[in-house]
């Protein structure tokens, strides 16, 4: 692709986002006032500590706009929350930025890509710290300290688990990677891990995917029903049994696909192609459902053009665009 068309694509993508945001602002002002507003119900928490000082915080619970307005009318503590409204608008704009890639690479997509890479890498690191290192490593090695600082619910009987020194030692070896001279020592922990999982998978694959696939494939090729020969079941079983066997032949490595073997292997490929076609067809369903989900987010939560969940004031889409058309 040459430079000029690439710049053309970039303009397209940026335009898509800008037009989308402009329409959204117009919509939120003129057609669906306040579209995208997020409401919360507030609960105050006040606790007096042992030293007499007070801790207080406000808990926010998301409610739909409709519920929020009903609560507010009953003088319950519910109101729109700016930070969440801004968050939703940000999410919607980021969604458009990602979609703009379909028209061509552009600065807005690059920005969204940079955000998703940085944020998601940190996201998983934080999860790894709070959900693996703290409860599995710290809690096992320093239970009292962990209870006092992070996990007050940790059982008082929890004792020190010295076996955890093994993963700790492996981790230290791994981090020696950062030292240039003895970086090779990081091979030890990786080799250990690879060995462990080779052992585990060696057995589990033979059990779950070898033995357990053979059993259910064994079916009678000729089925006798109550009123004699059952053509439909017999045909189905023949396809299943011979089909599986033909596909197996396709996977033979030490026999050339020639002559009779070649013919069987060929019919094995046919089976595989049918399998792939079916899987393709099925997966399309899921993918379209996902896209529908994103569009509902944009049209329902953000723009309030539709209201399938009875969550907010909305006019039917046609009523909204009618004044624009006339």
């Amino acid at each position, binding site marked *: 692709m040459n430079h000029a068309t690439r710049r053309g694509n970039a303009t397209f993508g940026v335009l898509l986002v800008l037009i989308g945001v402009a329409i959204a602002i117009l919509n939120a002002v003129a057609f669906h006032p306040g579209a995208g507003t997020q409401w919360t119900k507030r609960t105050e*928490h006040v606790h007096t500590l042992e030293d007499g000082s007070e*801790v207080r*915080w406000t*808990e926010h619970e998301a409610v739909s706009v409709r519920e929020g307005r009903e609560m507010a009318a009953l003088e319950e503590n519910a109101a729109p929350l700016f930070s*969440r409204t801004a*968050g939703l608008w940000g*999410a919607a704009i980021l*969604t458009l930025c*990602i979609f703009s*890639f*379909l028209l061509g690479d552009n600065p807005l997509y*690059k920005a969204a*890509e*940079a*955000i*998703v*890479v*940085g*944020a*998601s890498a940190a*996201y998983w*690191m*934080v*999860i790894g*710290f*709070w959900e*693996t*290192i703290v409860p599995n490593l710290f809690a096992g090695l320093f239970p009292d300290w962990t209870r006092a600082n992070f996990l*007050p619910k940790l059982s008082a009987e929890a004792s020190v688990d010295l076996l955890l020194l*093994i993963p700790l030692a492996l*981790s230290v070896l*791994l981090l020696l990677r950062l030292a240039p001279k003895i970086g*090779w*020592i990081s091979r030890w922990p990786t080799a250990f891990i*690879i*060995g462990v999982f*080779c*052992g*585990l998978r*060696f057995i589990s*694959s*033979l059990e*779950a995917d*070898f033995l357990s*696939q*053979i059993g259910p494939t064994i079916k009678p090729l000729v089925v006798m029903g109550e009123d004699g020969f059952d053509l*439909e079941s017999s045909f189905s079983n023949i396809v*299943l049994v011979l*089909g*599986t066997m033909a*596909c197996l032949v396709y996977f033979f490595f030490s026999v050339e696909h020639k002559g009779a073997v070649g013919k069987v292997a060929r019919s*094995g490929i*046919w089976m595989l*192609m049918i*399998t792939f*076609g*079916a899987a*393709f067809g099925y997966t399309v369903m899921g993918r379209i459902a996902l*896209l529908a*989900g994103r569009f509902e987010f944009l049209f329902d939560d953000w723009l309030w053009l539709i209201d399938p969940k009875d969550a907010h004031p909305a006019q039917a889409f046609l009523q909204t665009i009618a004044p624009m058309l006339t």
Partner: protein
Amino acid sequence: MMKRTIPMLLAMAAGIVMILAYFFPPLTPLQDKTTVWFNILAAVAFILGGGNLLKVHLKKVSDRREGWAYSMITLAAFVGVLAIGLFKIGVNPLDEFPAQRMAGDFRAEGSGFWYVYEYVFAPLTATIFSMLAFYVASAAFRAFRAKNLEAILLLGTAFVILLGRTAAGVFLTDFLPEEGILANFRLENLTVWIMNNPVTAGNRAIMIGIALGTASVSLKILLGVDRSYLGGGD
């Protein structure tokens, strides 16, 4: 010796113990333990991964290489989310333990990390995922061409399933009777038959092959035949 042989022996020993653990119940708890160990190791490894990410992008910024501004965005997002998550910014304490702020649930609604999930992480990843709807369309247009019998079977099956899984399928073959042998050719029934027979056959053979492939790769490593994971071999 230290670089090659010891790690190889380590891998072999670990693997063999795991295999034995399967058959000898006294060893079985080891399977779960090692999985936890792996999770710990992988979590600690984040330090290396994160360090590498910082290095790559800081270098890009300092060299003013093309696109360095985007590297700045990545760095800001990375450091920001890391700080919000590790310091539990915006997290309320638990009602039972009001004095311990760091004991609060870092994912609870309203916490800083929740904002990151709800308004950045979830919408971005779901949108990237949903782009597949567009890619399946362009792949179907371009790649599903009846060049030979194999391709015809592939696209023919996809065709039947696509139609059979919506109201269109019922509508198209509504003229066929609901009972008897012809009923099998109603698209919604044909779909089920295809799934139950040829597709199952194909999947079974693929699974058996995969099982053997997995077992073979594992075995080669445990035997020391394949040492490329240690960096090249023979």
